[in-house]
């Protein structure tokens, strides 16, 4: 199937080209192990949220936390099936330091047949002084049943809505 995601092999977990937004934000792979993942969002001027302070946008941290949580789920289920975020709760402890990139680590601490539960935190300098923490739930095998109709090789923008 051409539109299957070309997920990274174990030796190339630093690849993000399968997810255009992750690649566009410039995520960097830091480390991963079973059910765990750590990523970095390098600082960039166009990701700033408040030009007066020069601090990276809360929204960019949101995208990083969402992505690292998903990555941890993939590490827990061995990249075997598509997933989708069900809910994501983020607490912003403090503003990041201007000009610094953000690290985020996630742990997928429970997987059921349909749902994965994840905790994550993000920091700039010191892991023990987080800028934000997150709690998320993901649906596993999120596109089962939706793929049956239509040619698999041609992603169609007019495919029926799920839900």
């Amino acid at each position, binding site marked *: 199937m051409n*539109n*299957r*995601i070309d997920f990274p092999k174990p030796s190339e977990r630093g690849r993000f080209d*399968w*997810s*255009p*937004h*992750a690649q*566009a934000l410039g995520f960097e792979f830091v480390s991963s192990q079973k059910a765990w993942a750590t990523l970095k969002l390098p600082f960039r*001027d*166009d*990701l*700033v*949220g*408040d*030009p*007066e302070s020069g601090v*990276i*946008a*809360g*929204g*960019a941290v*949101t*995208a*990083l*936390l*969402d*992505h690292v949580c*998903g990555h941890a789920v993939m590490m827990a289920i061995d990249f075997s099936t*598509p997933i*989708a*975020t*069900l*809910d*994501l*709760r*983020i*607490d*912003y402890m*403090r*503003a990041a330091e201007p000009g610094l990139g953000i690290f985020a680590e996630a742990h997928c601490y429970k997987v059921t047949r349909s749902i994965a539960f994840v905790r994550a935190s993000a920091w700039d300098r010191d892991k023990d002084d987080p800028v934000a923490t997150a709690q998320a739930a993901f649906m596993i095998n*999120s*596109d089962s049943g*939706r793929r049956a109709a239509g040619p698999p090789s041609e*992603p169609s*923008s007019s*495919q029926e*809505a*799920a*839900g």
Partner: protein
Amino acid sequence: MSDTSDQLDALLGRIPYARYLGMRAELAGDEMTAILPFAPHLIGNPSLPAIHGGVLGAFMEMTALAQISIQQGLTRQPRPIDISVEYLRPARPLTTYARAEIRKIGRRIANVHVEAWQETRANPITLLRGHFLLSPRED
């Protein structure tokens, strides 16, 4: 209301990350609709394809910030304290819209709910609830 409209354009134009996503907003009286045109760099999962969940969280968060700012005429950006995002439907490669409703606003904290939809307003794709700090303390 053109003052408010200019203020809104200026607010979003000043936020590099809003420009990066391609977000804009329209005002009808005091009612703001935020608009996120589809762009390939917003895709998170190409197999569906679906817009990245983090993009939607960020888009709705900035919708809430903009709504607070135009309603309160704040000169400084409010800061998110916590947000909770619920994903109801996959976000397809289409234009996404959002509206924010300020449920409670006090001296320092606002509680805001945001709904985002694509083709049908009655079928929201994502919801956000959040608290925002109005007068950031130096810390």
